[in-house]
């Protein structure tokens, strides 16, 4: 039971499984942790352990079989624009230009703004994400990194209280990835919104987070929670600081042993 009532997102003994009868597979087996206002939390875990499933429950795309996710104290039952989502597969709408993608949420009845406010918001996030000059471009002309910046801008634009990010940079090359991490860090510095980032990358998790939740193998539970003591705000030099390196060594060891034990289980 997570008792902290100040939590923005609270996972409370969440259980999820797929399939029925003999084919049933338990994926999430009682996960509890919090994301507090303004806090950046990363969720690390071996591949296939249920990270996306967990995020889908928090977003309201999927109902848990037991337990619940609370958002500002209220049980999550459906998607809501106060919880912005960014997906791994650039889910920007290909039929809309960059600026129309970013404005999309603000033109819906749920969070309609005046024209001026919408324009102001779009301009602000175009700038924050370094998309100047591409306002009228169709997504097919953009690189992967730029598409993901559009997706981030679109998620920010509706002014969500928490961002849910599902391996947003996994499909990018190493260099773009680092650049995007820095961009996201600066943006979350400027925005101070709570965020939950799903990632495979230890480096990414440390660079961006206040706290890291490590999930175990499927059926998954929280394996470990670590506070990241690397001084804030982070900069490219942070990656070389002793605290950073020490934590990286530790987490890489944990990840190795987790995927090692999964491998041994699968190939005895």
């Amino acid at each position, binding site marked *: 039971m997570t008792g902290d009532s100040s939590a923005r997102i609270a996972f409370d003994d969440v259980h999820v499984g797929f399939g029925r009868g003999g084919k049933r597979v338990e994926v999430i087996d009682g996960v509890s942790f919090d994301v507090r206002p303004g806090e950046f939390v990363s969720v690390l875990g071996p591949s296939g352990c249920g990270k996306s499933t967990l995020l889908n429950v928090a977003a309201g795309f999927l109902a848990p079989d037991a337990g619940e996710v609370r958002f500002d104290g209220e049980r999550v039952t459906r998607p*809501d624009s106060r919880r912005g989502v960014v997906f791994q597969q650039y889910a920007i709408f*290909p039929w809309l230009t960059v600026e129309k993608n970013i404005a999309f949420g603000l033109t*819906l009845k749920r969070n309609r703004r005046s024209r001026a406010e919408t324009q102001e918001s779009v301009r602000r996030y175009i700038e924050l994400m370094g998309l100047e000059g591409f306002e009228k471009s169709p997504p*097919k002309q953009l690189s992967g990194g730029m598409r993901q910046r559009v997706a981030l801008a679109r998620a920010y634009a509706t002014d969500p209280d928490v961002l849910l990010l599902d391996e947003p940079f996994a499909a990018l090359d190493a260099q773009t990835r680092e650049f995007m991490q820095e961009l996201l860090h600066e943006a979350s510095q400027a925005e101070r919104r709570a965020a939950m980032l799903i990632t495979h990358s230890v480096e990414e998790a440390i660079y961006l987070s206040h706290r890291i939740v490590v999930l175990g193998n499927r059926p998954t539970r929280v394996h470990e929670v670590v506070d990241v003591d690397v001084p804030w705000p982070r900069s490219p030099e942070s990656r070389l600081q002793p605290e950073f390196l020490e934590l990286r060594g530790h987490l890489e060891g944990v990840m190795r042993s987790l995927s090692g034990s999964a491998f041994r289980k699968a190939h005895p």
Partner: protein
Amino acid sequence: MTALRRTVLPFAGFAVVIAAWWLTATTGITGKEVPTPGEVFAAAWEGLREPEGLLVDIRLSVLRVLIGVAVGCALSLPVGFALAWFPTLRAMFDPIINFCRALPPIALSPLVIIYVGIGEEARLLVLVWAAFFASVVVLYEGIAAVEDIYVRAGRALGASDLELFRRVIVPATVPQMFVAVRVALGVSWATLVAAELIAAQRGLGWTIQRSASFFRTEEVYAGILLIGFCALLMDMGVRLVQARAVSWQERVVR
């Protein structure tokens, strides 16, 4: 290279086939009477120049196909969306739709004659039938396949059901609508001859049948060529509009 590929090669393809045809006709290796391309083109030209000739047939047939496709697609659009949106409806009607789609329209014409008579409505009904069943399947499969990720993105941004439908599902389906229209056009042209079997007054299908009954082979060929030509032109027209309307679509270049 790609420009060359797009402009020259299609004509080269026609040239190869016409050359092969010409060889077959002049050498007579099939042992059957085959008119040469020259004879067929001459017959077509003759027919086109004649007052009240092939031009009238082309106009009538094109009009029939256009009406058939327009009405067929106007019906399949709402039905396609309904079937895609409500899985229960789809489970219920998918088999019967595929059953109807598989029926050759020519087999229906006797029934059409019995119930609708032999007027223009009868011919149009056959075409509408063909266009509807061909396009509705393409449509609802396309709509049902709208990537879940766009639906989720729309919902997470705060879209209501109606907004999701209008602003995500519909635009995401536009490419599929064009495919549906093209399929309907193809099927309607294929069905034309069957439709014009119903006591037609003129039309390209009608010319083919009449020429055949007088053993004017080159006119049969001319009619067939004209049908192919009209169908091709219409398809090109739709593709032109499609290229503009869905220019956002990413094409995999091979």
